[in-house]
């Protein structure tokens, strides 16, 4: 489900509905160190609101949220552990 490159770890949440994208993102974040970046691709319309909320609640930094129409792409940098 996740794939790691030099700059970030990819998480494919396409086709998944709430609560699964946030649930999977939380699991994937658990495996990263503070400062590392998770890139999430999503098709759930709610994700544009959900991932900023996820980042805020978890103390992560939402680097970018991009709506490409059919797909939404998020870059989230892991914050300190809470």
């Amino acid at each position, binding site marked *: 489900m996740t794939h790691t490159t030099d700059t970030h770890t990819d998480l494919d949440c396409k*086709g*998944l*509905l*709430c*609560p*699964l994208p*946030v*649930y999977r*993102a*939380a699991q994937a974040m658990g495996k990263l160190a503070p400062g590392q970046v998770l890139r999430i691709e999503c098709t759930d319309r709610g994700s544009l609101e959900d991932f900023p*909320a*996820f980042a*805020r*609640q*978890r*103390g992560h930094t939402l680097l970018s949220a991009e709506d490409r129409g059919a797909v939404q792409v998020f870059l989230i940098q892991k914050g300190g552990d*809470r």
Partner: protein
Amino acid sequence: MTAGTAAPAPSVAPMPIEERETKTRPRRLALVASKGTLDGAYPPLILAATAASLGWEVGIFFTFYGLDILHRKKHRKLKVPPLGNPAMPVPMPNLLGALPGMTAAATAMMRRWMKRAGLPDVPTFLGMARESGVRLYACSTTMGVMGVEANDLVDGVTIAGAAAFLDFAAEADVSMFV
């Protein structure tokens, strides 16, 4: 207060939200799950799994028909009642909803939708919630009233009364009855 001594101004100002978010205990969600239908089981499980993903502490008190969600056998067979449900996708008069087979048909349809949408079934969802640390309280009164034994329930539940749940809920930031 003694005359002549000035009372110190209260030094405790409300903590700014940002500070509160990072410095104090995790947020807490307390849910009461009271419905034993398939459509009634999902909202508390979705909220619980999400809140746990946000780093919150979560507890669900399963009471009355909601206890069926924790029942090893029954939670695989939760149903959608077409009777008295004007939101059914194929609207039907209540009289038809009362016919034999209609509940099974509505249930089969909902299960198909859930599967198509990739949503886990209730037992799987419950497992996800438990693995993320959600506390599952089985209402002991309901167990007594409905003759449910501890080994009828899934593993990892806390059998408790209202006092234990309220003790958890007293510190909750969000509480809901669903």
